[in-house]
C-alpha cells in the first residue's frame, strides 16, 4: 500500500524552512569563505583579483601580530583551562557534598555566565579604572598603594586582567558542568570504597576522577574553543590595547576586514585559525574515545 500523499510530502515540507536557512546562512557562507580567501578584495570593488594561496602564505609566514594575538589568546586559554577549571571542579565537589546553602552557591556561581561579555567587561573596566576604580581604592586602603595601576591599560597587566575577568565570567559554567557530572556517580561506589578503607584522596583519585573524565574532556574542549575565540570581552575592556597587548585572533580578523579592508586576507586568517582549533578538538575527542 502506498503511503498517503500527506506522508510523502510532509517530511520535505517540514524540513524546508530550516534547510533553506541552513543553506543560505551556513553552507553558502562556508563556500564564500573558502572562495574569498583566494582573492585580494576590498569588499566593494566589482572585480577582485585572484591571488591563489598568497593570503595563506602571508598569514603563515609574515603576520607576526596575528601569531602574537594567537599566543595571547593561548595564554588566556591556558589560565582558563587550569585555574578556572580547577576552581570549578573544587567548588562542584564542595557543593555536591550536600553543603548547607549549596543551592544558593549554585545560583550565585552561575550568575556571571548568564551575563553578556559586554556587561561583564564594562563592569570590570570601571572596577579596574586607574584613577577612580574601586580595586585601586581597596588596595590603597589595605596599605598596598604602591601596587595601584591602570590594570587594563598597563601593558604588564592588561592581558592577565582580561584573563581574570574571563575566568570570573566562566568558572560558574564549568562548575555546573562538573556538578552535573558528579551527580551521575552513584553513591554506592563511594560507600564500597569507604568500606574498603579508602581515604578521601584515594576515593577522589580512583572513583571520582575516572568517572568524571568524559565531562573533563568536554569542558576542556569547550573552554579552549570559547576562550580562543574571545572577542566581545576584549571590545568592552581594552579593544586590543595597550599597543596590541590584548589583541586576539578574532580582533585581528576584524581589523583585516573593516580596518584595512582586506576581506580575502581576513578569510584566510579565519580559515587558518579555524583549522588549528579543529585539530585541537579532534585530538581531544580521540583521547575521549580512547578512555571511554
Amino acid at each position, binding site marked *: 500500500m502506498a503511503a498517503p500523499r500527506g*506522508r510523502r510530502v510532509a517530511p520535505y515540507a517540514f524540513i524546508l524552512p530550516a534547510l533553506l*536557512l541552513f543553506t543560505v546562512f551556513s553552507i553558502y557562507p562556508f563556500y564564500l569563505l573558502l572562495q*574569498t*580567501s583566494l582573492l585580494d578584495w576590498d569588499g566593494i570593488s566589482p572585480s577582485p583579483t585572484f591571488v591563489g594561496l598568497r593570503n595563506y602564505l602571508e598569514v603563515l609566514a609574515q603576520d607576526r601580530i596575528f601569531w602574537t594575538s594567537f599566543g595571547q589568546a593561548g595564554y588566556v586559554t591556558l589560565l582558563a583551562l587550569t585555574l578556572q577549571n580547577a576552581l570549578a571542579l573544587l567548588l562542584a565537589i564542595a557543593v555536591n557534598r550536600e553543603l548547607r546553602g549549596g543551592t544558593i552557591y549554585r545560583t*550565585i556561581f552561575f550568575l556571571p555566565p548568564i*551575563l553578556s561579555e559586554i556587561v561583564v567587561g564594562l563592569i570590570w573596566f*570601571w572596577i579596574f579604572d586607574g584613577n577612580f576604580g574601586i580595586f585601586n581604592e581597596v588596595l590603597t586602603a589595605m596599605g598596598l598603594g604602591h601596587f595601584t595601576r591602570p590594570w587594563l591599560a598597563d601593558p604588564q597587566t592588561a592581558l592577565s586582567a582580561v584573563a581574570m575577568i574571563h575566568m570570573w565570567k566562566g568558572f560558574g559554567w564549568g562548575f555546573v558542568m562538573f556538578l552535573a557530572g558528579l551527580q551521575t556517580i552513584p553513591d554506592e561506589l563511594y560507600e564500597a570504597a569507604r568500606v574498603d578503607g579508602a581515604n578521601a584522596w584515594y576515593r577522589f583519585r580512583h572513583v571520582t576522577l575516572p568517572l568524571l573524565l568524559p565531562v573533563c574532556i568536554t569542558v576542556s574542549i569547550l573552554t579552549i574553543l570559547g576562550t580562543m575565540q574571545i572577542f566581545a570581552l576584549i*571590545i568592552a575592556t581594552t579593544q586590543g590595547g595597550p599597543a596590541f597587548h590584548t589583541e586576539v585572533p578574532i580582533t585581528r580578523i576584524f581589523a583585516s576586514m573593516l580596518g584595512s579592508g582586506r576581506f580575502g586576507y581576513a578569510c584566510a586568517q579565519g580559515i587558518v585559525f579555524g583549522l588549528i582549533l579543529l585539530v585541537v578538538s579532534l585530538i581531544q575527542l580521540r583521547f575521549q574515545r580512547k578512555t571511554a
Partner: protein
Amino acid sequence: MTGDDGRLTLLAQRARRWLGYLGWHALCLPIALSCVFPLAWMASSSLKTQRTVFSDFRLIPASPQWSNYAEAWTRGHFGVYFFNSLGYTAAVVTCVVSLAALAAYAFSRFTFKGSGLLYRVILSTMLIPIPGAFVALYILLNQMGLIDQGGDTWLPRLGYVLPQINAGLPFGIFILKPFFDKIPKELEESAEVDGCGVLGVFWHIMLPLARPALGVIALLTSLSVWNEFLLAYLVFSRPGLMPLQRGLMAFQGTHLTQYALLSAGMVISILPIVVIYLLMQRNIIRGITAGALKG
C-alpha cells in the same frame, strides 16, 4: 572498648565533619562574594551622581539618584535599545522553536533520502568551529542589502535576525529529535485513524507533549540572543536599530566617563535576564549541561 571511648571517637568524628564543612564554606563564601560584589558595585554606581561616582566609595550612596534610570532610558536611548532587544529576541525565539520543532519531527518520524546525513551535517555545525564565518556572513548580508547603511530600517533588522535563527536551529533540533523519538508511534497512528492529518498530529499531539523541551530551547535561545554582540556590531550603524549590547558600547563610545548613566543602562540590560534566571535557573542549567554533555 568502653562506652566513653566510643563517645569520644563519635565526638571526634563529628568535630572532623564540622571542620570539613567549615573548610568548604571558607572556600565557597569568598568566591560567592566575589561574584556578587561587581554586580552590587554596578548597581551602586548607577545610583550616584556624575560627581559622586568618582568620589563616594560607599556601596550604598548617600542620596540615591533614581533619576539616572529615567535619564538613561530616554536621553541615553536605553529605552530604544531595550525594545529592540525585546523584538529581536521574540522574533528569533519564535522562529527557532517552531522551525526546529518541524525539522526535528521530520527527522524523528520520516526517513527519506539523505535524512541521516543531513541531520549529522546540521548537528556538526555545533561542534566545528568556523571563526572566520562572520567575514563571509558580512559579505553575504552586504550582497543581500541587509547591512545597515542608512536606508530602510527593516532590512538590517532582518539581517540581524535571520542568521541568529539559523544559528539557533541545530541546538533546537538536537534537543527535540531524541524527545520526539521517545514518544510512542501508536499515539499518532490512533490519531490518524481518527482522521487527523500529518500537520494535525504534529500540532495537536506532538507539540503539547514536547512543551518542556520547547521551553528549554526558548530559554537558552533568548539568553544567547539577548547577549549577542558580534553580529550587532557588524550589522548596525544607527542607534535607533541597535540592541542593548551594541547600545551599551555606543553609549560608552560617546559618553566615555558617564559611569553613573552607563551603570544604569547596564542594570536595565541585565534586569530581565536576572529575573528570568532566578525563576527558571533549574531549566536553564539543565538545558546547558544536557546540550554539552550529551554531545
